[in-house]
């Protein structure tokens, strides 16, 4: 199992070495960013069972925080209270993006875990919409619909010795890949820990979990904070890769894309968001190559979502796993039958 994982990693790391098509690399980078976001959503949707439909807010907050930190800004927080910030290095901006998104996750978690089910979904949707409207209307800070332009690319290095600039696509590809792997490992450790078992217990039967002493709010808020911070990291990478951020990053359709990725791949599995992310990250490009209009693409997404819920309610990864196990079982059974005969 570990060997297979290493082989996959080696393959992924080698791609920029033999793939010279920059467009393909671009598609892979965007897919990777969405996979990070989908993995973070899966932590909430798959492991705690809470459908957060405002996830794009954390992604956008990460993108805006990091961009504003690295560009510097001058804005009135309150009337008469002017805050000025000189441009900071990009890596610091990205760190702040993770922290700010995490803090927002904490606040939203504290507020919205008073309620469940339909109410929770609606609070998260409302939160994302409020954030979008702020990004659109607080022109002094965010430039509103004019967008934040000329966002610097990430540079890492020691002064005077060496410096890596993440202007080119292969460097960005490696950045996304490393962050994705780190997030994957973090989520795996988290869900296999005591906290992860508590989350799954809450998903399966909340009253029962509470009755044995699981602190509901604490674990749900923990999941939200981690999830929001990862989405914020994805947003920060996105901002410094495409180098322009406008309020459209908060569009609901991106949350829907993440939800489709998680649900199709298999919520509550580690590999699910990756599989779903690859399918739905590459599908737009395939459809575009087939001359299909973007509206048609969304119609297909919507129909697929309905079909997945009807026919693969668990998602692709659990379905494949069950099929594989079933095959092995029947193999074992047929062998057992065959032996006495021989």
């Amino acid at each position, binding site marked *: 199992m570990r060997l297979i994982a290493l082989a996959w990693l080696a393959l992924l790391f080698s791609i920029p070495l033999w793939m010279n098509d920059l467009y393909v690399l671009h598609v892979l980078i965007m897919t990777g960013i969405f996979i990070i976001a989908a993995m973070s959503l899966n932590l909430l949707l798959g492991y705690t069972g809470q459908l957060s439909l405002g996830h794009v807010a954390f992604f956008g907050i990460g993108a805006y925080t990091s961009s504003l930190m690295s560009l510097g800004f001058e804005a009135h927080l309150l009337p008469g209270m002017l805050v000025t910030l000189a441009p900071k290095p990009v890596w610091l901006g990205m760190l702040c993006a993770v922290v700010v998104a995490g803090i927002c996750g904490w606040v939203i978690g504290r507020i919205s875990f*008073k309620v469940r*089910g*339909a109410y929770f979904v609606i*609070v998260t*949707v409302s939160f994302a919409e409020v954030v979008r*409207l702020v990004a659109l209307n607080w022109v002094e800070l965010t430039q509103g619909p004019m967008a934040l332009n000329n966002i610097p690319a990430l540079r890492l290095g020691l002064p005077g010795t060496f410096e890596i600039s993440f202007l080119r696509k292969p460097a960005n590809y490696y950045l996304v890949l490393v962050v994705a792997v780190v997030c994957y490992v973090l989520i795996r450790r988290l869900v296999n820990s005591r906290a992860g078992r508590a989350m799954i217990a809450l998903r399966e039967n909340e009253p029962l979990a509470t009755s044995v002493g699981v602190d509901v709010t604490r674990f749900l808020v923990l999941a939200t904070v981690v999830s929001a911070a990862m989405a914020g990291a994805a947003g920060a990478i996105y901002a410094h890769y495409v180098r322009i951020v406008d309020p459209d990053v908060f569009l609901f359709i991106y949350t829907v894309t993440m939800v489709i990725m998680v649900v199709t791949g298999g919520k509550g599995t580690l590999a699910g968001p990756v599989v779903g992310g690859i399918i739905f990250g590459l599908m737009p490009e395939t459809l575009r190559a087939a001359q299909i209009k973007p*509206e048609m693409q*969304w*119609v297909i997404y919507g129909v697929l979502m309905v079909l997945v819920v009807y026919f693969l309610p668990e998602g692709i990864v659990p379905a494949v796993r069950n099929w594989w196990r079933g095959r092995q079982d029947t193999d074992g059974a047929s062998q057992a039958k065959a032996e006495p005969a021989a």
Partner: protein
Amino acid sequence: MDQLLQHGLNALILGGTYALLGIGLTLIFGIMRVVNFTHGELYAFGAYMMYMWVMVVGANFYLALPLAVLLGALLGATIEIVLLRRLRGADIDTTMLVMIGAWIALQNTEQLMWSGVAKSIDTPFPSSPLVMGVVSVSWNRLFVFVVALLLIAGSYALINRTKLGKAMRATFQDRETAALMGVQINSIYTATFALGSGLAAAAGALLGPVFVVYPSMGDLASLKAFAIVILGGLGSIPGATIGGFILAFMEELGAGYVSSGYRDAMGFLLIIVILLVKPTGLFAQKERIG
């Protein structure tokens, strides 16, 4: 003061259509336990039907209106029969995912059919407003308000005075017992979804000529309808009616005195505050967490 009166009048008129949206959504949630994300699409569908009949076909405005509402109800019934019937007994998250899928598919079908360009609809009303002292209102908006009030009254009568309404209320209270008493649950569900969808389509058909018609108009309508329903309490019809008017007043006053850019943020702030202070909403009789 004059300005306040004018805002108040605008809010009252807008509130009527908001209440229609809210009643439709709360009926569907209360009776079927379905968080209906297609609600806003039915609103957009109503507006587009109005556009199609009046501007493309050239039908009479007053004839196009009931036609748009009927077609909306028909689309709602179709969605219920095709998508939701096989999900009876599924948990609320599953139906929610299906409704999100349906919403995305519907909205983009609208965009494919009518393109993303905003459309306006001609009305038979005089363009000069009706001036009443210090305030004025356009004839079109006045018409919208009157029709909305009639539809609200009609919904109340349907639910409280007819046999169908009685069956709906029985299903709302206790599905199993209602079924035992001979209520056809499936027909009640289809009727409820059709009625709720028809009301949303009516709101769209009424407001389409006032504003403009564009494919994503349903998104905000959906979210506002959620805000109204949460404010009034999920499943409460009087709550949705009053919630519609409260949201309209907040939006008008917010737009007038704070910033017009944040007009649409009012509903969401309202949701967040209500859920912090009184999660059951203002009028729900008991805790109804879906």
